């Protein structure tokens, strides 16, 4: 007999995980709203508007990191184009926000300012329905999902993988960036969308709206964590991990990797799209530079810093890197690229399992001390398929053995 869904869902996470999630929800849904809205500004516990927006932004990044981890950590597919899906979600919702400006733009016209500027007389066809909130939300999920599905179908069908896949995704986002930079594309060119005024008729700058958006970002993060956790502990997740570790063997057993990879890939893109839709109203701008290859590759670094193949690692990594970034780019902007660059190198060289791996090693070391030292490198390939993927740490190592001549 099959275990009921709710039971499986609850069992997918250890008790500690649920408790941590509940604590997080408490802080995000009660603590911060109260601290921001109810406490006066002079109060030492008051959370400023800047902080709420910053934290909301980072929550969106965390969702992206989770999406990235699902496809990279659990399916072994490194995407260097997730920024595209994120930005597409943002643009889809940004279209709605632009329409909500109404006649309050600087030209006072029905059309968005940039279209007046380009002397367009009516909305292009793909803007149809953009004044509907529901359609915007649908588009924010469907547009990245559809592109990911089509692209993924062709890529996975011909078994493009490894660095090939990574670079092609990078080229994809690069091409999209060029496309969106053009004024004729109809998405505001260089400047993108900005100067938003309202969502559903309510002011976008009010503290209540800000808090609501923040709480929604937290909700999305919690939901994606639970969903991700459920997926990777399910049968589906195990097959996916097996594909990651030894694709040929899984095929010989009789699975078609295409469906597994494609599902996870599309889901990951849709999550990114949702995160982008929540990100844009909180940051107040979306422009093509979000699609630059550098942004996408940074997403991979968040996950690498936190630890691939552990959802909590992705969340931690996104948090750590982004908090560091918002501090460092203000305090010493000259040296941030150095820091980021060395972070890329150091994490791949010395912390292949990220912060979470380090934490585990330290804990295991304390328990087993003074027994033999833990091996410095990651566990042997294949060992991850029959344990919980929480321990899955070495997506590339299985391929590594045969990598020598394989192109």
């Amino acid at each position: 007999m099959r275990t009921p869904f709710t039971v499986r869902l609850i069992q997918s996470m250890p008790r500690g995980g649920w408790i941590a999630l509940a604590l997080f929800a408490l802080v995000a849904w009660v603590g911060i709203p109260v601290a921001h809205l109810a406490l006066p500004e002079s109060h030492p516990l008051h959370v400023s508007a800047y902080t709420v927006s910053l934290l909301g932004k980072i929550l969106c990044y965390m969702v992206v990191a989770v999406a990235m981890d699902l496809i990279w950590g659990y399916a072994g597919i490194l995407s260097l184009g997730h920024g595209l899906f994120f930005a597409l979600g943002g643009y889809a919702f940004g279209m709605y926000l632009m329409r909500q400006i109404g006649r309050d733009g600087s030209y006072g016209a029905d059309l968005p300012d940039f279209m007046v500027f380009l002397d367009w007389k009516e909305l292009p066809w793909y803007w149809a329905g953009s004044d509907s909130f529901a359609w915007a939300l649908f588009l924010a999920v469907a547009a990245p999902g559809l592109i990911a599905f089509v692209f993924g179908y062709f890529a996975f069908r011909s078994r493009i993988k490894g660095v090939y896949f990574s670079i092609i995704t990078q080229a994809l986002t690069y091409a999209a960036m060029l496309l969106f930079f053009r004024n004729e594309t109809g998405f505001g060119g260089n400047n993108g969308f900005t100067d938003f005024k309202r969502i559903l008729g309510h002011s976008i700058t009010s503290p209540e709206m800000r808090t609501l958006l923040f709480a929604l970002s937290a909700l999305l993060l919690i939901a994606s964590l639970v969903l991700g956790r459920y997926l990777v502990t399910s049968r589906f997740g195990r097959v996916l991990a097996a594909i990651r570790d030894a694709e040929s063997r899984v095929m010989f057993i009789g699975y078609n990797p295409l469906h597994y990879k494609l599902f996870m890939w599309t889901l990951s893109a849709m999550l990114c799209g949702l995160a982008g839709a929540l990100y844009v109203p909180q940051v107040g701008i979306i422009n093509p530079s979000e699609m630059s290859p550098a942004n996408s590759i940074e997403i991979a670094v968040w996950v690498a810093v936190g630890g691939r193949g552990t959802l909590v690692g992705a969340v931690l990594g996104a948090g750590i890197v982004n908090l560091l970034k918002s501090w460092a780019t203000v305090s010493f902007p000259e040296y941030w690229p150095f820091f980021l660059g060395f972070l890329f190198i150091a994490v791949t060289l010395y912390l292949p399992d990220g912060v979470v791996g380090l934490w585990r090693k330290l804990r295991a070391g304390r328990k087993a001390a003074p027994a033999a030292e833990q091996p410095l490198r990651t566990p042997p390939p294949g060992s991850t398929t029959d344990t919980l993927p929480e321990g899955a740490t070495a997506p590339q190592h299985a391929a590594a053995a045969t990598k020598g001549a394989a192109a």
Partner: protein
Amino acid sequence: MEPAMNRLLLRLVLFCAALACLAGPARAALDPALLAGFHGDFSSRVSAIEALGVAGGDDARRVLAALEEGNLGVAGERVLIVDGDAVRDAATGEAADVAAADVDLITVNNRVRRALSAAHAALSLLDGERGERLAAAQNLSENASETLLPLFERALAAEKDDAVRGVLTRAMAKVNLGAANPAKRLQAAEALGESSDPAVKNMLAALLQKNGDAWAEPDVAVRSAAEASIAAIDRRVATAQHVGTVFSGLSLGSILLLAALGLAITYGVMGIINMAHGELLMVGAYATFMVQTLFRGYLPGWLDWYVVAAIPVAFFAAALVGVAMERLVLRHLYGRPLESLLATWGLSLVLIQAMRVIVGPQNVELANPSWMSGGIELAAGVVLPWNRIVIIGFAVFVLALIWLTMQKTRLGMFVRAVTQNRPMAGCVGVPTARVDTLAFAIGAGIAGLGGLALSQIANVGPAMGQGYIVDSFMVVVLGGVGQLAGAVWAALGLGIVSKFLEGWAGAVIAKILVLVFIIVFIQKRPQGIFALKGRFADS
């Protein structure tokens, strides 16, 4: 009516006089008839000035110069030049027995000044420097009239420079197409078919326009001649443009090739994408800049040859950086291709920022040596620049060098062996670790040479390499890993195809189309154009 008639008559006389001057050999003195106009009003003076300009010669020049300085005057029937106290006859240049005080100096107003500048232009059209002649021709063609035709013909007969000839031809055509005589117009319309200038084509097309019911050109024969000429021009321009497109495709292809060759080697050997490859291009370009600075400071006489001296410098600078990268970072990441992707991206961030801090965030200026500037003009607007021609040659040279290294040396053999089957190569005694380092050094050095080439046609700045990594990887993918021939075909093919697409759909759409094409191509042939033959464990 009366004065206007007079003026017209005067013009005619002057014109004939000018013609007489042109026809005969250079004379010691000016025809007095040329100067007669200076006795009349401003209009007749202007005509006289024009006639002098057309006549040309030192005497005319002298008279015009005197007029410009306010030293030309009339006394009775004579035209005189006042030079301090001395007074000379304008026509002959000989001293005249007239007191300076008796000479009535000619005042110069704006209209006269304009005529003077046109006359100067006419004078310099015949014997000025190239730039002067070009400026003069352009100046004159703005207000060309039939009076100028003989001058144009004379200038055209002596003119060697294509740009000046083009301007003159067009100016003449403009005058002739507007002539009253249909035979003359027909002749002009036919003759213009020889041109390959879009401006001439526009001129002919204007004849075919219908203004209400009336044609701009009433004569049917002239119209059909104009149509034929337009077709001829179109054909010639289209051919020239196709040649130009193929050329710029080749040029882009050779740049891609230089950028991708190094990547093909390192990727073939180590199976990792070096995301910092673009920064190795940047290092090569900055090394070139450094050599240029040194030459400016210490060997200014040899400045034209700094590019040649920079070849080894760029190679070794980039190779050095490459070896450092391989030894310090990549060595530890073998067999983890995706992670080395991230690590090399980190390296590229560090290199870019380091260059920003050391040299500065602005683009640095690199000058083409004089022997690389200019170009061959195929038709108006289609120029094959020398620097691009040199770069195509340079790419061939580098390719030949690599081919020799890979095919004829022991190191090349080792590199090929490791590319084909690393464990087996190791088993038979190839020092794979050393081969890795050397292969990386060669690949990086070639990237440095690519940077040198780029520095001659593109901006050199810290982030210049970023735009090339995706393109070069596409070349490697398309060509097949570890295949020099594949890289060559892929680079040239991509270059030419994207240039043709650019002409048809614009640069951005072309880029996207090329990308889509590559994705579709990999569907069909995952191994690239030239698949490496051998046994593979997992593919």
